[in-house]
Every structure is written in structure tokens, then in C-alpha cells.
């Protein structure tokens, strides 16, 4: 080093556009630019979808669109009220199914399970969220639908509202379980102690103090579950029968039904680009997007307020006191109406399964049971409640075992070397799935190549550079919205933007871009979290040695945050590998006997192949199960490796 080495700045300020820009500032603006990509995408999604729906508004009219009840685009009827209602009904049913199970399991995990079983139980319930939605749909089609058909008296078909709600309910379970479990276990221990110290039983403490205190988190969980259910495509489409009608009567759970998402998925590939029908589908997507946006914003609001809640020594702000009061009222309403809700459900199901007179008797019996619980001693009540919770947990685990078990057991006989290495034959009835496997790997590879750099850089920016300004808040909100946007909306966006507007056609490239934007939020979040967890002493030590902020990040922070970043990337791979809706309008074909090599060629992919076989070639049973198993194993293996990695490093790096 020269004598005057101290005086000369090691990193010379840059001259950009005639202005002197400090080195760290230049880096900061570069990162900011990348982080803004998320906002640009959200704007682009809104822009493309809005632009494509306006012609439909002009041609059809919003009034006709929302109130008309005939959806027959080929005849020029664009009344969407049946499909909008369908979406609402299926979602409602899903929540009615999932909330008791999810909340019960969450309470069990947090309050009842011995400490050493808590983590394993949480992990198991996470597996639900790893199963691709097309696999759920397949399971629904081959197991749930026939089951309903054979067991519901008088049922003429199994593809129904009920089937859709059951599947969506199962799919909403992991969200509800993990978010409520978080909320419940973060209720301060001191509340539990105060209650127990007054001689309350554990169950009284749980039901009267802990759950009401966690009500915001539980509502957020429910809302998130609703958001998930509204946006779900493949599973619902495969099991609801897709008839655009109102159930007759409206409580007829065995009626076929059609959702917005299913309409998009079924019709999008078959309409002439630019027709009224084409634009009407975009209008549906716009509605879907806005509803999900609203739902997700609501859940975020609720969560944010929850954080201010558990700080007893600090006086809360006026606003949050008012909010607390509102939440207390909500908790009361919830406790008040739960009997009515439970009885209503009992009645509807009994009516469906048996007969109207039996339904009255069963409902009355349920009512009597509920009333008599008031006369139980506190200890017996606790015994009853704890058995109930244990039962709920068992049901949740049984569902998991049944779904995974069915596919594994029936899929294994279909597996063979040829199945993996051969091209399909006779339209998929024979042969293997080689091009689908390769296609999925190609899709995943490119997706990761695009999404990881964008995501990691955005994550670093948010963790280390972003101050809480309006601009960064917009970026954060965009990322949240992107994470909540239904995958079918990504598919439509990909179609409008990449396939048509940029004229990439049905191609690997269009699939890459679409999937990359879909998985980016996951990578951003995990990176941000990982970077934030690097202890500030480490950063300060580096800065104190005279390293620039950027050097500190690349040489100290990133290596320390590496496991977290990798975990996020792996999870995004799993997600990309399992998604169907985003690629079905952008990149995939059902059948190939020869693969194209370029990025402008379409590919086959496992999820879409499974969908195609399940819905078009019903007798190709072995092929279906074999494909489902390969897809399931692939995705679960990816998630499992992410989990193992996370646990491994969490143990090792115990800051």
C-alpha cells in the first residue's frame, strides 16, 4: 500500500450523467431498480388484463355481465353471475370444511401436543401445501368423486360443489393451520399463567383466553385460506363438473357448479384471440384478481394490527385500542354464532346423506348435546374438548395419509424404467412420460435462472437498503400481491404479454417468464428474511474495517445468508415444477412424440400431462397414477430437501 493510501478513496466515486455518485449510492440505485421489477410486473399484470377486458365491458356491458345468468359464449350470452356465484359457493364450502379442521389442528399442535411432537406435526401439515394442485384434482377425480357418487343417496353424479369444497378445503388446510398456529402460540405465556393461576382448567384457558386473544391471527388465517381457495384452478376444475348453473335448490351440495378459475382454464385455449369471448375471459380474470387483492390486503391489515396487541406495558395508540375493541366484538360474535353455524352444517349434511326428517332429528340431537355440555364439570368438559381436538388432528393426518398413500400404492405398479425413458404412445394410453419429465426440468431450469437473480437482489435490497419510504412500501405491497395472485391469472398474463404481445408464441420462453414471475415473491421473501437474520455485529465488524456496504454484503452477509437463499430457491423450484395453470396457456402441449430443442418450441410437462390424461383418457389408469406419482415424488423431494437444509442450518448457525 502506498504512503498516502489512507487519503485516496479506495472506491472512486463514479461519474454518471455528469454527476458524481458515491459508490454505495450507485449500488443502491442499481438494486432498487431490480427490486422495482416486482412492482413493474404487478402493474403489467393489471395493465394487460385491464386492457384486454375493456373491449368486453364495451361489448357486453357490466350490467349484463354481472346479472345475466346464461354463460354461453358461442351464442353470445355472457352472463357471469353463475360462475361468480359458483366461486363464492365453492369457497364458502371449503372454509366451512377447513376452518374447524385447521383451527382444531392448530390448537392441538400449539396447546396440547407434547413439545417434541410440535415441529414434526407442523412439518407434516406443511406437506399438504407441497402437493401440486393437479395432483389434488386427480385424487379428487379418481377417489372423492366416485366416493360421493356411491355414498350420497340419490346422487346422479359425483362431480359437484361438495367435491370441489372438500378438495379446496384440504388445500386451504396448511395455510389455516400454520397461520393460526403461529397466532395461537404467540399469545404471551403470561396470559395462560394468569388464567391457570385463578384455577381455570387448561381448556378454559385455551377457549376463553388464548383463542380469543389470537382471534386476529385466526381471522387472517381464514382470510388467507379464502384467498387461496378463490384462486385455485386445477383441482376445482377437475371435480366440480363445470356446469355454469346455480345449484337447485341453492343448498344442493351435489349440484355441479362452475368457478371463475375453471371457466378461464377450460375456455382460454379454445377462443379466437381478440373475440368478445376472449376479452370476456380477461374480464373474469380481472374480477378474480381484484377480489383476491382485496382479500389478501384485508388479511395483511389484520395481521399488522395484531402485532401491536401483545405489548401490555406500552400504552397502545388510540387507533389500535379501537381496533382491539372491534376484535373483542368479533370474538364474541364468533362465539355467539358458532352454535348456529355448526347446527346449520349438521343439518345440511344430514339432509344430504339421509332424509329431511332424519335431518331434523339429528340436528335436534346435536343441539341437545351442545346444551348438555353446559352441565358438564369443567374437568369433564376439558376431557371432551381435548378428545375432540385429538380426533381433529387424527383426521387431518389421515387425510394426508390417504392422499399420499393412494397415489403411492397405485402408482408404484405403473412405474418402470421404460415409463421414465419412453415417449408416450397412442395419445398417452401407452408408453412413457420421458418428454414430460424433460419438459418440466427444462421449465424449472429456465425459471430458476431468471427468478433467482431477480429475487435475491430484490431481497437484499429490501433487507439492507430499503428505508421505510412510500416507494419501498409500494414495492413490498407489490410483492405481497404478486405472492397472492392466483396462478391462473399469471397464465392469462403470460398469454397476453409473452405469447401474444411479444409474440414468443406457445414456447418454453413464455413459460419461463410466466413461472419466474410467479415464484419470484418466494425467493424475495426468504432472501430478505435470511439476510435480516445475519447478526448486525457481523455487518458492523466488516464496515468498521473500512469495507463498503456492498463489499460487506457480498463477502459477509450473503455467505452467511446463503442457506436461507438456497432454501427459498429450492422451494421456488418445487412450486414451478408443480404448477399447471400458468403454463397451460403459455408453454405446454398435451402430446409430443418428438421434442423440439429451442426456447421458442413448446414442451410437455408433468402437471399438464397428468391433467390431460385424467380428463381426456379416463381408461389410462396406470399412466395417470404413474404420472401423478412421479410428479408427487419430484415435488415432495424438492420440498423435503429444502426443509432438511433449513433445519440443518438452523441448528448449525445459532446466532
Amino acid at each position, binding site marked *: 500500500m502506498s504512503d498516502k493510501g489512507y487519503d485516496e478513496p479506495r472506491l472512486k466515486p463514479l461519474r454518471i450523467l455528469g454527476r458524481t455518485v458515491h459508490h454505495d449510492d450507485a449500488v443502491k440505485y442499481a438494486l432498487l431498480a431490480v427490486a422495482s421489477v416486482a412492482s413493474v410486473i404487478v402493474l403489467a399484470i393489471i395493465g394487460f388484463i385491464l386492457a384486454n377486458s375493456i373491449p368486453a365491458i364495451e361489448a357486453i356491458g357490466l350490467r349484463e355481465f354481472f346479472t345475466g345468468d346464461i354463460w354461453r359464449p358461442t351464442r353470445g350470452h355472457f352472463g357471469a353471475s353463475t360462475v361468480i356465484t359458483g366461486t363464492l359457493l365453492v369457497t364458502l364450502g371449503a372454509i366451512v370444511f377447513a376452518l374447524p379442521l385447521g383451527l382444531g389442528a392448530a390448537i392441538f399442535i400449539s396447546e396440547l401436543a407434547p*413439545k417434541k411432537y410440535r415441529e414434526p406435526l407442523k412439518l407434516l401439515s406443511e406437506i399438504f401445501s407441497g402437493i401440486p394442485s393437479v395432483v389434488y384434482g386427480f385424487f379428487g377425480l379418481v377417489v372423492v368423486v366416485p366416493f360421493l357418487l356411491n355414498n350420497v343417496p340419490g346422487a346422479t353424479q359425483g362431480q359437484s360443489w361438495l367435491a370441489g369444497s372438500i378438495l379446496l378445503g384440504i388445500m386451504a388446510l396448511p395455510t389455516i393451520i400454520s397461520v393460526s398456529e403461529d397466532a395461537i402460540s404467540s399469545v*404471551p405465556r*403470561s*396470559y*395462560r*399463567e*394468569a*388464567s*391457570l*393461576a*385463578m*384455577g*381455570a*382448567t387448561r381448556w*378454559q384457558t385455551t377457549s*376463553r*383466553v388464548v383463542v*380469543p*386473544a389470537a382471534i386476529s391471527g385466526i381471522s387472517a388465517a381464514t382470510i388467507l385460506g379464502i384467498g387461496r381457495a378463490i384462486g385455485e384452478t386445477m383441482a376445482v376444475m377437475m371435480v366440480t363438473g363445470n356446469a355454469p348453473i346455480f345449484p337447485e335448490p341453492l343448498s344442493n351440495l351435489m349440484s355441479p357448479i362452475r368457478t371463475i378459475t375453471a371457466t378461464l382454464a377450460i375456455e382460454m385455449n379454445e377462443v379466437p384471440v381478440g373475440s368478445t369471448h376472449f376479452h370476456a375471459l380477461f374480464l373474469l380474470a380481472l374480477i378474480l384478481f381484484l377480489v383476491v387483492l382485496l382479500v389478501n390486503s384485508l388479511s395483511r391489515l389484520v395481521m399488522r394490527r395484531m402485532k401491536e*396487541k*401483545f405489548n*401490555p*406495558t406500552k*400504552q*397502545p395508540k388510540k387507533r389500535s*385500542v379501537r381496533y*382491539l*375493541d372491534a376484535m*373483542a366484538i368479533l370474538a364474541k360474535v364468533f362465539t355467539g354464532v358458532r352454535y348456529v353455524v355448526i347446527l346449520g352444517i349438521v343439518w345440511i349434511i344430514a339432509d344430504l346423506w339421509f332424509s329431511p326428517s332424519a335431518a331434523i332429528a339429528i340436528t335436534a340431537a346435536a343441539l341437545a348435546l351442545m346444551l348438555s355440555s353446559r352441565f358438564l364439570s*369443567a*374437568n369433564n368438559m376439558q376431557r371432551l374438548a381435548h378428545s375432540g381436538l385429538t380426533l381433529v388432528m387424527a383426521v387431518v393426518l389421515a387425510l394426508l395419509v390417504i392422499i399420499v398413500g393412494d397415489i403411492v400404492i397405485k402408482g408404484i405398479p405403473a412405474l418402470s424404467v421404460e415409463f421414465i425413458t419412453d415417449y408416450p404412445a397412442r395419445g398417452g394410453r401407452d408408453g412413457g412420460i420421458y418428454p414430460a419429465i424433460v419438459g418440466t426440468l427444462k421449465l424449472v431450469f429456465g425459471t430458476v435462472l431468471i427468478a433467482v437473480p431477480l429475487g435475491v437482489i430484490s431481497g437484499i435490497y429490501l433487507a439492507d437498503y430499503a428505508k421505510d419510504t412510500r416507494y419501498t412500501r409500494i414495492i413490498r405491497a407489490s410483492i405481497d400481491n404478486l405472492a397472492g395472485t392466483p396462478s391462473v391469472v399469471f397464465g392469462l398474463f403470460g398469454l397476453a404479454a409473452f405469447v401474444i404481445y411479444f409474440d414468443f408464441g406457445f414456447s418454453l420462453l413464455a413459460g419461463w417468464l410466466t413461472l419466474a414471475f410467479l415464484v419470484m415473491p418466494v425467493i424475495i421473501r426468504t432472501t430478505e428474511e435470511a439476510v435480516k437474520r445475519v447478526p448486525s455485529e457481523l455487518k458492523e465488524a466488516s464496515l468498521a474495517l473500512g469495507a463498503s456496504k456492498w463489499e460487506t454484503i457480498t463477502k459477509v452477509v450473503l455467505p452467511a445468508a446463503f442457506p436461507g437463499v438456497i432454501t427459498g430457491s429450492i422451494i421456488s423450484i418445487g412450486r414451478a415444477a408443480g404448477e399447471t395453470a400458468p403454463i397451460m396457456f403459455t408453454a405446454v402441449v398435451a402430446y409430443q412424440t418428438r421434442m423440439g430443442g429451442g426456447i421458442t418450441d413448446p414442451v410437455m410437462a408433468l402437471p399438464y400431462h397428468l391433467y390431460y390424461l385424467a380428463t381426456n383418457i379416463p381408461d389410462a389408469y396406470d399412466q395417470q397414477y404413474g404420472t401423478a406419482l412421479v410428479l408427487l415424488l419430484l415435488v415432495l423431494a424438492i420440498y423435503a430437501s429444502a426443509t432438511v437444509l433449513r433445519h440443518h442450518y438452523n441448528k448449525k448457525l445459532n446466532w
Partner: protein
Amino acid sequence: MTDNIIDINGLNLWYGDNQALVDVSMPVMKNKITALIGPSGCGKSTLLRCINRMNDIIEGCRVEGEIMFHDRNIYSPETDVMGLRKKIGMIFQKPNPFPMSIYENVTYGPKVHGVNSREALDSIVEECIRSSALWDEVQDRLGASAMSLSGGQQQRLCIARALSVSPEVILMDEPTSALDPIATSKIEDLAQELKRDYTVVIVTHNMQQASRISDYTGFMYMGKLIECGKTEEIFENPQEELTERYITGRFG
């Protein structure tokens, strides 16, 4: 005329393999205030929590010995733990009102124990909040969230909540350590009031507080009860050198 309401005999306690109480024996006098003092980590809170079996909820905690309350060993298997905790209430270091209204905080305990009539609950609320010297400050906003109270008010609400199930004994674990001096002196005055109807056991780090408000004092060190007796005697004429060094601040 006073007598022992609680007798602790030969109590040992382990958290896993770590012994936190070693052969502790001491009486607690009825309608008196008993203070537990000693350096941090010596087992004061642990001992206090044994008295209403709050240690039951800690995994891996094991107790030997006996605590007699009304001539029955509370650690005998037939003890009704819920009933015991109703009789022996507890106030914690950090005020921990439930995130409910002031009114509901006080009615929580009675409701749990089966009181449901509106009039009975109303009168319990008024009586307990008056006893905890909070009535004037909150009487016109009983429906407001307990979280809107100041720290000192919250702690007095917690005392009202503890009184709501008519306990005989109130255990207080450093009830003033999270409060400012004015709120502290209110709680101290309140403790003096309470001993007419209740028996109080209070853990404190503050030697002045112990000597100001307590009738009896126990000094603990490393899980052992070194010495206990009348507060004046402990402070003016301690029998053990360890006690003397601690109360004169020459410790360590």
C-alpha cells in the same frame, strides 16, 4: 392471634437435573405479609410458584416434600389443583391483564368457577376493583380494553382479578418491578390494606420494600432458605452472616 396458614416442609425441586430448591421449610402466617428476598436466581419465584402448584405446567419440573395448607398436603395426589389455585391467587411481575375489557378481566375468574348471574358479577366487579383501589379511576369505563390502562393501573386490575375468586392467600412475584415509584407506592399501600382480609406472600428485590411492608421475611440463597422470621429481626439482628451481608449490601 395469628396462626400458620401454610407450612412448607422439606421442599426440594428440580428442573430436569438442576436442583432449584433445597430442603426449604418455612411457615406462612395468616393475615400477614411475608416477603421473600435473595439474589437473582436463588429460587424465590420457584418457591412462590410451588405454593399454588404453578410449577405443574413446566415440563420436567419435579417436586419432593410437602406444603401444608389447611392441614392438607397440596402435593398429595388427591388435591384439586384448580380449587387450590382459586384459594391461592397470584400476581405476576409484569402486569398481564387479558386483552379484554376491564369488566371482563374481573369476571373471568368467577365465570370460570360457575358464577353467571349478572348481578352477582356486577357486585364482584365493583367490590374487587374498589379493594384494589382502582374504582375511582375506571368506574366510568369498565367496558374499555384493559390494554388502555397505564402499567400501574393494569397491575391493580390484575390484583382485582385475583381477588375476584375470593382467595385466602395472594402470591405476588415482584409486583412492582415494572412500575414507576408512584405506582409502586400505591401497590405497597394496597398490600397493607389487603392483609386485613388476605394473607400475602411477596417476592421482592427491593430491600426497602421488604422492610417497609412485610411482617415476616425469608432470605434465600442458592435454592436454600437461609433464614426466616420477623422482619425487624431479620433486618436488625440477622442470625446468619450471609443474611447480614445481603441486607447491608455487602454481597458478592
